């Protein structure tokens, strides 16, 4: 199946929305792959970070929204610190998750009241904050 590229496809409204929410210019990425090469959780991802951006450049946002990658991203900012073009992949992930959450069809949100005392003491604090932030959009 050939992917048909056109102005309409690559100037997808939702991709523009990702740019607005994240403050990132998707076109800045020249696909060096350094974000993917240095990502500490890349092994758990189904699409490489650099490939996520490439798919956005090609207007293929639905494929990205369906991916595990955007939920695996730990927002550690290793990618952003290494990116030669100053693109913050984690911000793009934030935006992608927000779009999924706002559609209200994704994973259930987490209520702060549901977080048990045991979880607060035993789980890493970053993890708890991350869960709240990610899942609540």
């Amino acid at each position, binding site marked *: 199946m050939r992917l048909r*590229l056109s102005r309409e496809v690559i100037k997808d409204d939702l991709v523009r929305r990702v740019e607005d929410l994240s403050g990132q210019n998707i076109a800045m990425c020249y696909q060096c792959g350094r974000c993917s090469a240095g990502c500490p959780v890349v092994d758990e991802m189904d699409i490489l970070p650099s490939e996520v951006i490439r798919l956005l450049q*090609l207007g293929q946002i639905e494929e990205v929204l369906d991916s595990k990658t955007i939920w695996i991203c730990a927002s550690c900012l290793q990618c952003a610190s290494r990116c030669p073009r100053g693109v913050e992949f984690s911000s793009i992930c934030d935006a992608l998750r927000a779009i999924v959450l706002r559609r209200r069809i994704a994973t259930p949100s987490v209520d702060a009241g549901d977080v048990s005392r045991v979880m607060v003491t035993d789980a890493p604090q970053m993890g708890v904050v991350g869960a709240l932030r990610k899942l609540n959009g």
Partner: protein
Amino acid sequence: MEHRIGVFVCHCGSNIAGVVDVKRVAKQLADYPGVAYSTDYLYMCSDPGQNMVKDAIKEHNLTGVVVSACSPTLHEATFRRAGAAADLNQYRVEMANIREHCSWVHRGDKEKATEKAIKIIKTMIEKVKQNEALEPISVPMTHRALVVGGGIAGIQAALDIANAGHDVVLVEKTPSVGGHMAQLSETFPTLDCSQCILTPKMVEVSQHPRIKLLTYCEIDDVSGYVGNFKVRIKKKAAYVNRDICNGCGLCVEKCPRTVASEFEEGLATRKAIYTPFAQAVPNKPVLDRDNCIYFESGKCGICQKICPVDAVDYEQTDEFLEEEVGAIVVATGFDLYPIVNIGEYGGGSIEDVVTSLQFERLLSASGPTGGEVRRPSDGEIPKEVVFLTCVGSRDPENHVSYCSKVCCMYLTKHAMLYKHNVHDGQAYVFYMDVRTGGKGYEEFYQRATEEDDVLYVRGKVSKVFEEDGKVMVWGVDTLTGRKVEIAADLVVLGLAMVPNSTAVELSKKLKIQVSEWGFYSEAHPKLRPVESLAPGFYLAGAAQGPKDIPDAVAQASASASKVCALFSEKEYHREPIVAWIDEDECSGCKVCISVCPYDAIEFDSQKGISRIQEAICEGCGACIAACPSATIQQRNLTDSQLYKMVSAALED
């Protein structure tokens, strides 16, 4: 004469000494007959090394020197200068190559390598023993240059030479100077208007008191040698006396015949009598005989009737001019690889698949669409435009193997200018690599992607075909591994740069070398990039290889400086290692004349003998091998020397 030869064995760091036992070599050769002094040193080419040679010549009263080191192409000149500085004739200094010919190729066997080094040096000692003291040959020189090709490279070279105070003859085969640069819209990476920066130079070249501008002329024949070339130039019949024509343009206006314009790359028409473009220099028309009604049928004649100064002359014929020059700059430029060879992309069959030069004309404010991008088939403004890089280039199986170097940049510029022109359009560039080597080039490319939304797709397109009024492009995005297709309105091919169609023919007239693909060969790819191997010929611009404007201009100025260096001396000095004929023994059979590739041998019919013109002879040795009576000898490489050298090499 008593021989007192000095032998200097170089370690070249460990290059030689790591394999050859240099101490043993120096010690053993000290006892060789005729050797007065033998030593070794870490780097002979260093200042202390050269001083050792100078000191030894004086101290030991040496009659010859053998520096046993690297190839003579590297340091022969160095040590000849050192010898001369110590009052030893420079042609009594020789190099024995024990590096490239010995240590580098025999790393595995040090013992045998050492023995071989000794033999190589012995042969050179035998040679030096019989070397004559020679002086460089001096020949008179014409301080006037010929520049072939009136594109930006030729224009720049001509201006630089003329501004240095030498006369220049600039020959251009088309009716105007300017070349391909005159066709371009704006130029990367600064987007200056091409004509705006070019036309002042075109005018300057036509008005410069030291430049003789010959347009609509071609090189017919070149004879002679560096400093003394005789050039026959064909002045093609223009059927317009361009000396009296006042350029009013009435003839062009009234001419009833229209044909495709070369300057507009076929996207517009011109008349049979025409000036190629509005800013042409000289701005005087020529008549294209092949398309003229008068020449077809004897009728019409309107141009002649209407010309207010009677400049149109149907009886005009080709004329031949003779010019004498001392140096020749070759700047014949490039053509695009023929689009019809690219069948898989619809080249030549799909109207909306255009060449990069055609797209330049579509972008140009003076072009056929007045600077609005409109596609050729129906004049519509294209909204989806696909640019293809490496069309013909980097394809050794089907087209040409090399990278054309400028396509990445000009297609980026095309995509950018297209977006500036059609704001709601989309530009796509299919690429294998984006090569942006040049000052400000990478930044320019990044600007195209960030600010002008140009989508770069990594992958070579497989085919281009027509479907439902669109030009379908099938490719792949190798970054995601996805096949992609675009229903485009216009496709622009970044065709390979190839040498100008006349380049190979001209190279035969000039007797200079061309490389595999027909680009002129430089003498050394790094250290002599603007000189031909044949003395007196210099290269500028895309004739030597694909180049952008800054590179072409830089190379043109470099050629000009080489010409000026040549002209800085009153006479031309050259190596005296040439052939000579023993007049008493020459039978006058002329075999030598037939084999000489440089036309350096003339026949003296009074004496009935052949005679070498030392100023032309390159010392190739062809005549020496061919002479049936062994009457021709090479200076300092005589048969007698060769016998001694071979004997030295073969003795145990």
